[in-house]
């Protein structure tokens, strides 16, 4: 069969647009990120969201939706001062840390999320840097494997973002190339750090950040401390505990360590 230009033109249109229509109907035609990372396809974590698929276009809020890590924790980890961290796009980190001399961006968030939640993440051959603030939060969880701690020792940097998220120029970008991991962990805290009041939004990271020893917290909740990004209230309801009772006990401990 001989084919001429006009039928060929029709075939091209039918093929391209018909193919797009068909794949749209099947749900395969995605031109935008769904803001839902792909899940692990095999192994112990099959079906769970994979941090390796976090995209630069995701906001901290999107990450929080998929991984249950509070946007405030991500903001603290990556020194984001945006008043609404949930709307902060992960890709903006690259610009923020442009002058630091280290590539801190989407990959750093992936690593942070994976280490934070104990999810598998392949770092082989990759140099993924984390700011010291992020590593401190991870270390505070006391859940890292020795090889993860070793990785962080090599790739933690004491850097300050050159610009704040509101576009103001910070005094001077700093970067220390020496590893900045400290053995004594500091804690994750939410934006309520200064208040020293246990509320519905208080996370475990706030408590340790205020100085309440982890062992004391564990005694009160009667279990090992969960992810520092989790709110006490969520933990209580997920475990069938009385939040008001726990809150009172925790507040008493907070009052003991609160600066006078």
């Amino acid at each position: 069969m001989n084919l001429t230009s006009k039928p060929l033109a029709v075939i091209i249109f039918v093929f391209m647009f018909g193919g797009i229509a068909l794949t749209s109907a099947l749900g395969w035609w995605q031109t935008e990120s769904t803001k839902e990372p792909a899940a692990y396809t095999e192994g112990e974590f099959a079906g769970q969201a994979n941090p390796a698929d976090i995209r630069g276009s995701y906001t901290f809020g999107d990450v929080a939706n998929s991984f249950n890590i509070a946007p405030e924790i991500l903001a603290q980890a990556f020194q984001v001062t945006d008043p609404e961290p949930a709307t902060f796009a992960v890709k903006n980190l690259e610009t923020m840390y442009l002058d630091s001399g280290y590539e801190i961006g989407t990959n750093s968030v992936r690593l942070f999320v994976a280490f934070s939640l104990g999810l598998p993440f392949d770092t082989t051959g990759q140099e993924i840097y984390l700011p010291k603030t992020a590593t401190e939060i991870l270390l505070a969880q006391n859940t890292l494997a020795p090889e993860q701690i070793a990785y962080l020792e090599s790739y933690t940097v004491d850097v300050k973002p050159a610009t704040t998220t509101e576009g103001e120029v910070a005094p001077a970008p700093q970067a220390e190339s020496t590893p900045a991991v400290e053995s004594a962990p500091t804690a994750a805290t939410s934006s309520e750090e200064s208040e020293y009041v246990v509320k519905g939004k208080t996370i475990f990271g706030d408590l340790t950040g205020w100085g309440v020893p982890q062992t004391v917290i564990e005694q009160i909740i009667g279990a090992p401390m969960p992810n520092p990004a989790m709110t006490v209230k969520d933990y209580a309801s997920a475990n069938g505990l009385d939040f008001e009772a726990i809150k009172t006990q925790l507040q008493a401990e907070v009052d003991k360590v609160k600066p006078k």
Partner: protein
Amino acid sequence: MVNLFGKRIRLFRPRSIWVRRIVQWFFFLLIAAIAINHTLAESGAAIPILSSASLHAVCPFGGVETLYTFLSSGLLVKKVHDASLVLAGLSILLAIFFGPVFCGWVCPLGTIQEWVGKLGHKFFKKRYNHFVPTKLDNILRYARYGILIWVLYVTATSGSLVFEAYDPYFALFNFWSTEVAPTAILILGVTLLLSVFVERPWCKYACPYGAVLGVTNLFRVFSIKRVESTCKADGACSIMCPMNIPVDSVKVVRDHQCISCLECTSEAICPVASTVVFTNGSVK
């Protein structure tokens, strides 16, 4: 149609495939509109009926770049979307049947090189598209496979679209944004400049996606075939071919560089009816 020396000659015929020009214009404007709408969408002013997808989403090469990552982990390389995989699949399927029509009819980067090439035709007349010495040209034609292997390797090992920083297609529809690397703009500029001397220089020597689709020329269903019994060997087909393929010396065009533009056929430059044809059958 008249009979001259026993051959059927068409007196009045289009010298080019005009319908291809229309299709090229259509896709060029469509991609340009999508790229502009994507920029407008960032400031909340997108035109509602038009897609505001990012350029990466409507580039089939992204589907090839992400293939290793997709097959090994089920994930897509950063910035690539499912649509790229769909477009890659559709254009490869189309190429298996009809050759790299994506290059010759759809790709806006090919189109803009042809437009600039018209200037070259005007300036240099017959010398146009014949500046590169044959020996060098023959070697350079395989460079795009080297580039393809490099792109696939760096994408697989880094998990990111490294080629974006060199991609003239991305620069063409994003030159106004800060997302484009200066190297990509430079490569686009050099490509357009070279187009004044050589027809489709990017496609011939550098395009990694053209390299992928070009392989289908070796086994495609519909091919350019020359009927030797009616051919008057005037060489018009070879002269017209933008990819400098010696159509007049082969029976079936299996050259990896053919872009299925049909400009060599009896529908366009070949003056003898049904002599250079686009067919899935055999010819005498």
